[in-house]
C-alpha cells in the first residue's frame, strides 16, 4: 500500500514543482515576445508597413538631403513616408511616396510637393500642399507637381548680399562718425567744437533776447499810442492816411499837367530840346563802341584758326 502511495505523491509533487516554474517561464517568454512584436508593429505602422497605402511620385531637381523614411505631410499631419529616391536623369530625381489610403480623398491632382525642414536641426520632410482648382482625386501611382525647395545655399547667397550691404553701410557710417569727430564742417563743429558751441549758445541767447524785444515791440505796436502803432492798429488813422494819399494822387496829377505846360512854354522849350539831343548822342556813341568790339573779336578768331 505504502509502496503504491509514495510514488504517486512523489510524482504529484514533481509535477507541481515543474508546472510551478513552467508557467512562470511561459509568461516570461510570452510577455517578452509580445513586447518585441508590439514594438515592431508600432514602428512598422509608423513607416506604413501595415494597413492599406497608395503610391505617389514627384520629380525634383534637388531633394536637398531628403532621405528614405522621411515623413510626408499634408496640412502638417504625417500621412506617409518617402519610400524611394532615385535618379531619373542628370538633372531630375524621382521620389516615391507611400501614403495612407484614408487620406487619398484629400489629395487632388493639382497638389504640389515641396521639401521643407522639420525645425532648424530637424529632418527633412516632404510637404504636400493641397491643390486649389482641381476636384479630381489622385490615383495610385500618380505623379504630382513639385516646387523647388529653398536650399540653404540660396539662403546663404541672399544673406551674403545683405551682409555685404551691411559692410558698406557700416564703413560709410564709420567714415561719417570719424568726420564728425575730426572734421571742420559745421555739423562736426556743432558736435565737437566747444568754441563753436559757445558761439551758437551766444547766438541763441541773443536770439532769445531779440525775440523778447520783438515781443515787447509787437505788444507796443498793438496797444501803444505812437504814430506807427496807430498806423497799424487805429482805424481812424488808416482812413485819414487813405484820404491824404488820395489828395497826394490828385496833387501829382495836377503837377504833371503843369510840367507838360512848361515843356511847351517858349522860355523852357530850349532846355528840354537840349536834354533830348544829349541823350541821342550818348546812344550813338554806345552803338559805335559795340560795333568795334565785335570786329576785334572776329579778327582774333581768324588769327587763332590760322595758327591751328
Amino acid at each position, binding site marked *: 500500500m505504502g509502496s503504491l502511495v509514495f510514488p504517486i505523491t512523489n510524482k504529484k509533487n514533481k509535477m507541481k514543482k515543474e508546472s510551478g516554474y513552467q508557467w512562470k517561464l511561459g509568461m516570461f517568454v510570452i510577455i517578452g515576445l509580445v513586447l518585441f512584436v508590439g*514594438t515592431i508593429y508600432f514602428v512598422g505602422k509608423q*513607416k506604413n508597413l501595415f494597413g492599406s497605402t497608395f503610391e505617389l511620385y514627384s520629380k525634383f531637381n534637388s531633394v536637398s538631403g531628403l532621405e528614405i523614411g522621411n515623413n510626408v505631410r499634408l496640412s502638417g499631419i504625417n500621412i506617409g513616408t518617402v519610400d524611394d529616391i532615385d535618379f531619373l536623369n542628370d538633372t531630375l530625381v524621382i521620389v516615391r511616396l507611400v501614403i495612407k489610403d484614408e487620406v487619398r480623398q484629400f489629395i487632388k491632382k493639382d497638389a504640389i510637393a515641396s521639401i521643407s525642414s522639420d525645425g532648424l536641426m530637424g529632418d527633412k520632410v516632404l510637404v504636400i500642399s493641397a491643390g486649389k482648382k482641381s476636384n479630381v482625386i489622385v490615383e495610385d501611382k500618380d505623379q504630382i507637381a513639385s516646387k523647388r525647395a529653398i536650399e540653404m545655399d540660396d539662403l546663404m547667397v541672399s544673406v551674403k548680399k545683405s551682409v555685404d550691404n551691411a559692410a558698406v553701410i557700416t564703413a560709410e557710417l564709420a567714415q561719417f562718425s570719424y568726420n564728425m569727430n575730426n572734421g571742420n564742417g559745421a555739423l562736426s563743429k556743432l558736435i565737437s567744437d566747444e568754441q563753436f558751441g559757445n558761439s551758437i549758445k551766444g547766438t541763441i541767447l541773443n536770439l532769445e533776447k531779440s525775440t523778447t524785444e520783438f515781443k515787447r515791440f509787437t505788444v507796443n505796436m498793438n496797444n501803444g499810442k505812437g504814430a506807427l502803432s496807430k498806423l497799424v492798429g487805429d482805424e481812424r488813422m488808416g482812413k485819414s492816411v487813405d484820404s491824404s494819399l488820395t489828395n497826394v494822387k490828385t496833387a501829382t496829377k495836377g503837377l504833371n499837367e503843369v510840367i507838360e505846360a512848361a515843356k511847351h512854354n517858349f522860355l523852357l522849350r530850349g532846355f528840354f530840346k537840349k536834354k533830348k539831343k544829349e541823350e541821342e548822342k550818348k546812344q550813338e556813341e554806345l552803338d559805335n563802341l559795340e560795333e568795334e568790339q565785335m570786329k576785334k573779336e572776329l579778327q582774333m578768331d581768324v588769327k587763332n584758326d590760322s595758327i591751328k
Partner: protein
Amino acid sequence: MNTTLIAKKESITTYLKETFNDIGKVTLFASRFFREVIKPPYEIKELIKQCYIIGYKSLPLVTVTGFIMGLVLTLQSRPTLAKFGAESWLPSMVALSLIREIAPVITALICAGKVSSGIGAELGSMKVTEQIDAMEVSAINPFKYLVVTRILATTFMIPLLVIFADGIGVIGGYIGINIHGDVNLYRYLSQVLESITFSDIFPATMKTFFFGFFIGMIGCYKGFNAANGTESVGKAANSAVVTASLSIFIIDMIAVQLTDLFL
C-alpha cells in the same frame, strides 16, 4: 642577464601557447556544441529548466537595472539637451541609446556576472566532484545534458531579457522626464516609436543572441574544463565572468562596425 631574458622569452612563448591552446579548445568546444545540438535525443525538459533559471530568475535584476538605466540616462542627458533648447528630443534620444546600445550591453554584462559565473561554478563543482564522469558512466551524454541546454538557454533568454530591459528602461525614461517636466504618456511613447526604426531594432537584437551564446559557452567551457581541486571551482567562475564580459565588448564593437557597414 641572459638567463632572465631567456626566462622572459620562455614565459612569453608559454603564455602565447596557452592562449592559442585555449582559443583552439574553445573552438573545438563550440564545434562540439553545434554537432550535439542537432543530434537527438533532445533534452527539452532540462532546456526549459535552464531557461527558467537563466531567464526568469534573472528578470528582477534586469528589471531593476533597466529601470535605473532609463531614469538615470534621462536625468543625465537633460541638462545638455536643455542647453540647446532641445528637451523635446529627450524621449527619442533616451529610447535610441537604450535600444541600440545601453540595454543590450548592460543586460549582457549583468547576465555575464550572474549566469556565466553560476554556470562556471556549477559545472566546475560537478567536474571536481566527478559527477560528470558519473554521468558518462550511466550512459547520459553530459555535454548534451549540461552544456547544450545551458548554451541554448542563454542564447534565447538573453535577447528576451534585453527586450524587457528596453521596455522597462523606456518607462524609467518616462518617469525621469516627468520629474522635471510634464509629458503625457501617449505623447512620450509616440515620440519614442517615431524615432525608432528597424535598423535600430534588428542589429541590436541580433547582437544579443551572440551575447547570450558567448555568455553560455564561456561559462560552460570554463566549468567543464575546471581542473581537479576545490579552488579551481572559484577560478572557473571568476575567469568565466571576466572572459564573458570582455567578449561582450568585443562582439559589441564588431556589431557596431557591421551595422555601420551594412545599414
